C-alpha cells in the first residue's frame, strides 16, 4: 500500500518539507511580513487578490446588486421548448429555461458557490488536519495505521467516492459539500503530516526536547503552528476546485435538491440541455467559475512561492 497515492504523497511531502526549511526572519523581517511585502509587488498576486475580493464583495452585497429576484419565474409563459428569450428590457443577460433573470442568478449564485467552496474546504481541512496531526504527532504505528487508511481513500477514483457518499447520506447541500470534502481529506492529512515530520526533525524541536519541554507542548506549541503554511496554501486552491467539483456532481444529479437556489456549478450543469438554443446559459456560469478559480489559484500559487525561501530574489 505504500505505493498507493504515491504521487500525491510525494508532491505533498516535498511541499511540506520545503516549508519546513523556512528560516525564521529574513533581514529582520518576520516570515509573513516579508512574504506579504513580496506579494504586494507581484502583479500576478494582486490580480488574484482583486478577483477574490470582487467575488467576496458580490457575494456579500448580492441583494443590493441583483436587479431582480433570482427564483421568480418572470417569463415562464413566454418560454417554449426550443425558444428561450434572450437579452431584453429588464433582463440584460436574458432569462434561463424557466424565465428567471440570468444576471440576478449569477450574482446570487456567487453566494452558494462561495458557501460550497468554504464549507467543503473547511470540512476537508478539519478532518484532514486531525488525521494529519494524529499521524504527525505520534508517529510510529499510529502514523502507519492512519496513513494506510488515507492511502485506501486515495486509491479509489475520487468521483466514485463522492457519488457513494452523496447516495449514502441522501442528497442535500450539506451532503454535496461533504462529498467534495471527502476527496480533499487525504490531501490535507498527507500535507500536514509531512510538514510536521519535517518540523519535528528541525533544530528547534530537537533543542526543545533536549531542554526537557513536554512532548505535547512541543507538538502543539511549536511544531503544529510552524507546519500550517503549506496547508493554508492548499486550502486556497481547494476553494476553487470545490466549485468545479460541485458542477460535476450537479451534472450527475447529485447537487443541491433545492435546484431553484442559484449556484454556478448547478447552473452550468443544468444549462447542458439548452446548449443548442441558448449557449449563454452555460457560458456565463462557466466564465464565473473559471475567473474565480483562476483568482484563487493565482493567489494560492504566489502565496506559496512567497512563503518559499527558494523563490526569494
Amino acid at each position, binding site marked *: 500500500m505504500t505505493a498507493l497515492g*504515491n*504521487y500525491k504523497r510525494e508532491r505533498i511531502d516535498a511541499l511540506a518539507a520545503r516549508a519546513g526549511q523556512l528560516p525564521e526572519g529574513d533581514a529582520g523581517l518576520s516570515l509573513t511580513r516579508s512574504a506579504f511585502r513580496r506579494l504586494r509587488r507581484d502583479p500576478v498576486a494582486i490580480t488574484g487578490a482583486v478577483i477574490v475580493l470582487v467575488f467576496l464583495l458580490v457575494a456579500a452585497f448580492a441583494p443590493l446588486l441583483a436587479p431582480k429576484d433570482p427564483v421568480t419565474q418572470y417569463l415562464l409563459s413566454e418560454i417554449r421548448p426550443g425558444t428561450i428569450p434572450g437579452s431584453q428590457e429588464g433582463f440584460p443577460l436574458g432569462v434561463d429555461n424557466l424565465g428567471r433573470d440570468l444576471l440576478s442568478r449569477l450574482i446570487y449564485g456567487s453566494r452558494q458557490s462561495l458557501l460550497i467552496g468554504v464549507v467543503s474546504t473547511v470540512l476537508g481541512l478539519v478532518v484532514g488536519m486531525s488525521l494529519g496531526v494524529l499521524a504527525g504527532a505520534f508517529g510510529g504505528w499510529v502514523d502507519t495505521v492512519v496513513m494506510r487508511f488515507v492511502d485506501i481513500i486515495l486509491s479509489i477514483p475520487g468521483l466514485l467516492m463522492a457519488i457513494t457518499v452523496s447516495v449514502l447520506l441522501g442528497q442535500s447541500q450539506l451532503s454535496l459539500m461533504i462529498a467534495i470534502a471527502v476527496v480533499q481529506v487525504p490531501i490535507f492529512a498527507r500535507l500536514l503530516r509531512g510538514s510536521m515530520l519535517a518540523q519535528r526533525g528541525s533544530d528547534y524541536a530537537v533543542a526543545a526536547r533536549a531542554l526537557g519541554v513536554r512532548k505535547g507542548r512541543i507538538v502543539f506549541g511549536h511544531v503544529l503552528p510552524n507546519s500550517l503554511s503549506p496547508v493554508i496554501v492548499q486550502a486556497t486552491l481547494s476553494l476553487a476546485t470545490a466549485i468545479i467539483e460541485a458542477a460535476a456532481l450537479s451534472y450527475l444529479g447529485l447537487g443541491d435538491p433545492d435546484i431553484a437556489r442559484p449556484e454556478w456549478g448547478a447552473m452550468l450543469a443544468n444549462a447542458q440541455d439548452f*446548449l443548442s438554443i441558448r449557449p449563454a446559459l452555460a457560458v456565463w456560469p462557466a466564465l464565473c467559475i473559471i475567473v474565480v478559480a483562476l483568482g484563487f489559484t493565482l493567489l494560492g500559487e504566489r502565496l506559496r512561492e512567497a512563503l518559499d525561501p527558494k523563490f526569494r530574489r
Partner: protein
Amino acid sequence: MLRFIVRRLLQLIPILLGLSVLLFAWLRALPGGPAQAALGERATPEAIAQYNELFGLDEPLYVQYFRFLGRAVQLDFGSSTQYGRPVSEVFLERFPGTIELTLFAMLFAIGVGIPLGYLAARRYGSFLDSASVVGSLIGVAIPVFFLAYLLRLLFAVELGWLPGSGRQDVRIDATRITNFYVLDGLLTREWDAAWDAVLHLVLPAIALGTIPLAIIVRITRASVLDVVNEDYVRTANAKGLAMATVRRRHIIRNALLPVSTTIGLQTGLLLSGAVLTETVFAFGGVGSTLYDAIRFRDFAVLQGFILMLAVVYVLVNLLVDISYGLLDPRVRVR
C-alpha cells in the same frame, strides 16, 4: 531489488483483503439494491423479494461475503448482473481502452506540459510565465462535461477533423485481438483501423490530459527554478560552459527527475478510470463501466473492478519506484 519487489507484492494481500471488506459493506449500505435497479419503474415489492431470493441477496451479509471471497481467491469475481457475463471478461474488454486513453492523455500532458513549464521557468515572472500557468489552468477550471462539448463542437461538428466519441468508427470492420484497438490495427496490418482508433483518442485524451498538464507545467516550472539555483549549475556557468550545454546537461536533466515521478504516478491515477470523461465521450473504458455499475448496483463489477484496479495501481507505482531508482543513482531502492 528482488526482495523489495516481493515485499511490495506481499503487502498487496492485507490491502486487498481490507479493501474487499470495506467495499462489500459500503456497497451494500447503499439504498436501492440491484433488484430495484434491474426492474426500474416496473418494480413491485413481490418482484424485488423474488429477485433477492433468486440471487442470494436475502442471505446474511457475512455469508455473501465469504461466498464472494471464496470465488475471488480463484480469480472468479462472479458475473455482472448488468451484462450477464463474467466480470473478468468485461474487465479485459474495457481496461485496454482505458490504458490507451491514459497513454494518449499523458503524451499530450507531457508533450505540452514540459516545454511550457520549462519556458515559464526560464522567463520567470514574465508575461509568458503567467500566461502558461494561467493557460494550463483554464482546462482544469472547465468541468469536463462542458469541455468535451466545446471540443466536439469545434473539432468534430464545425471543422470535421476529428471523431467526437466512441473508440472506432463503426463502419470499419476491424479485427479484435487484444482489445487495444491501435495495437490490433498494427498487428493485423489494418492500418486504417489503427489510424482511426488513434484519431478517436485525440479529443478524450485532451479533455483527460488537462489536469496532469496543469500539474506537469507547475512541477516542471518549479523544479527548473530549483535546479537553476543549485551550486553545480552556478559552477558550470562559472567554468564557462556554453549556456546551451549547461541547459541540456545540467538543468533539464536534473529538473526532469521529479517530473518523471509525477508522470509515472499521475499515470497510475488516470488508469483507475476517468469516470466522467469516458462517459461523455461514449468511450468504453473502466471509468464509464464503473459509473454504470454504481447506478445499476452491479456489485460484482464494482467489487471486481476496484480490486483489480487497486492491483494495477500498486504495480504501476512499483514500476515507478523501480525506474526512479534506475534514473537517479542517489536513490537506492530498499
